[in-house]
């Protein structure tokens, strides 16, 4: 069958003075495109989503997304699901697995037909670090019990994020890590790896490739199962020795991905910490953390409560508040 896409400008020599033997220049020469173990690094301008979609559609995959909204984090659910419904693998089948200790607080959201939401009750812990680290255990158990029959690929994402730009099938690969937006310019030794040898997450000085963010990682179910099991094993062993790694499960994730190298890396476009100024090399902010300053959130809630009647109809105050914090939202005030 004739291939539907005609590859265009990307593969033609640039218009400016061509050297006799220069091959087609890639559109990004300012960033690293391929890791030293030949895993692609996904930056805007380096891929053609039409080709990727055509390759992907033939295979009829289902992708799962595991996310946790515990205690006060339930307020982020609507923003997360609303933006994910629009921007995450749009047009492809996705199962959102939402773990929460307040299932009654999950707002009803109209999801696209190929997207499904599963709400799974989970207990909370007093320390946020424990909530964060136990995610690994919960994910690995669920993969083992039923996700391996339901999805082909699984991604773990933080709930306190919103998507502003399409995230598509370019993220689908066997083992995928996201380069941290805080760390991508750092030399190896000032990376935030756990360095104390007593921890299972320790990476000795002189070792390390990139610093990966625990806010967005994934891959095939079997690889994610291996990753989460190994990381949680490290967390448990550390707990038994009374140690906690510097960045909790993110330290364990970094150790795992150092010795089991990802097959694809996502640039910081795929998890951008909102507190950072966005440099030019990050051309697109696809997924960004949402402001967690809860005091400010509460103050604003009171303020907006008073102005509510004056505003264009909004479905709920919570959505208005998260809408307001979403920079790209246009809200009449």
């Amino acid at each position, binding site marked *: *069958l*004739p*291939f539907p896409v*005609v*590859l265009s400008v*990307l*593969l*033609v*020599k640039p218009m400016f003075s061509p050297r*006799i*033997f*220069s*091959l*087609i220049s*890639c559109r990004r*020469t*300012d*960033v*690293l*495109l*391929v890791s*030293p*173990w*030949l895993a*692609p690094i*996904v930056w805007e301008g*380096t*891929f*053609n989503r039409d*080709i*990727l979609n055509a*390759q992907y559609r033939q295979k009829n995959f289902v992708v799962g997304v595991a996310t946790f909204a515990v205690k006060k984090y339930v307020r982020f659910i609507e923003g997360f699901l609303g933006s994910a419904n629009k921007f995450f693998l749009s047009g492809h089948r996705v199962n959102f697995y939402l773990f929460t200790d307040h299932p009654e607080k999950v707002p009803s959201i109209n999801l696209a037909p190929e997207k499904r939401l599963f709400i799974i009750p989970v207990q909370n812990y007093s320390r946020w*670090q424990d909530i964060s680290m136990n995610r690994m255990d919960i994910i690995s158990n669920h993969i083992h019990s039923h996700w391996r029959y339901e999805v082909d690929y699984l991604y773990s994402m933080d709930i306190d994020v919103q998507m502003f730009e399409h995230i598509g099938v*370019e993220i689908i690969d066997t083992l995928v890590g996201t380069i941290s937006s*805080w760390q991508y*310019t750092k*030399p*190896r030794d000032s990376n935030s790896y756990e360095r104390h*040898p*007593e*921890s299972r997450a*320790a990476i*000795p000085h002189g*070792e*390390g490739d*990139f610093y990966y963010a625990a806010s967005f990682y994934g891959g095939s179910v079997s690889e994610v199962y291996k990753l989460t099991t190994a990381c949680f*094993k490290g967390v448990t062993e550390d707990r038994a*020795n*009374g*140690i*906690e790694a*510097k*960045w*909790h499960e993110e330290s364990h994730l970094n150790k795992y991905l150092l*010795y089991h*190298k990802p097959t694809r890396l996502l640039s910081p476009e795929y998890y951008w910490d909102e507190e*950072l*100024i966005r*440099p*030019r090399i990050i051309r697109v902010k696809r997924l960004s953390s949402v402001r967690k300053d809860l005091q400010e959130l509460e103050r604003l809630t009171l303020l907006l409560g008073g102005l509510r009647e004056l505003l264009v109809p909004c479905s709920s105050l919570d959505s208005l508040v998260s809408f307001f914090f979403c920079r790209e939202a246009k809200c009449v005030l």
Partner: protein
Amino acid sequence: MFICDLNQDLNSSHQRYSKAKTLSSGLWKSFLNLKSFLFSYFSFRMIYTKPQILKRSDVLMMTPWFAPIVWEGTYNSEILNEQFRQRNVTVGLTVFAIKKYVVFLKTFLETAETYFMVGHRVNYYIFTDRPEEVPKVALKEGRNVVVLQVQNYPRWQEISMRRMEMLSYFSQQRFINEVSYLVCVDVDMKFNDQVGVEILSDLFGTLHPGFYTAERRSFTYEHRPASQAYVPSDEGDFYYAGGFFGGTVTEVYKLTKKCHEAIMVDKANGIEAIWQEESHLNKYFLYHKPTKILSPEYLWDDNLGRPEILKKRRFLAVPKNHAAIRNK
């Protein structure tokens, strides 16, 4: 190269952020245990320089469908070698020495011993109609020669195209049980520099050395719609060489089977593609995109000169007298 002048901005905001976080995670210090550290589930260390900046900005490093294009300077052999050794991979190298082409085997095998997949397990699969003329070459440990007797054909074009049939047959019959990856190359060549595990992928092809700078309209695809190898003039990514391709046994089986079937259909319709099986290969790669592409370093002819972007010439054509050697 990451933009360095932004470091300052990022550093200062990072310091503010990290201070806030370290205060809350200082608990473990009071419970320090002086147990000796064991890498219990990681059994090795690898020391190498941290991946940094882009070393090659003069060439395309990745296709729009995320297939890396392998050039010198884009990969780290140590990391890759370690990954493949852990998987205990055996690589099959297939080569066809039909009729007088047996003369190329000695140089081919000797140079392969020096440069091809050094340190890994290799099976050389030599397809020949003259098994007694296969030279005995000293092999390193973990490497074997397997001679497969096949028939010859009167025309060299036929011999060339029948390689697809033989590869697909033997892939299914034998290679699937013996090797993880297949590398299929021409025999009238010699290895001149490292060709290692950096080439291995599910499905890979090589950029033809004569066309890597060419525009799409110059590619010598088969342009006659009557042939199964037909590629419309507004389509085409690259022009791949028929002399170096490969992948996992399953993928190579699918490729060679498809190409062979297409060749047979053409035969029945009384047409032969302009560059024989290379045309069919190119059509296959257009609609089943390779997951890795090898630069012309991996298939070069010194008659094309030594351009600056070619940092290494790994696999070179051996000069031959076409008239003397073909059809004999």
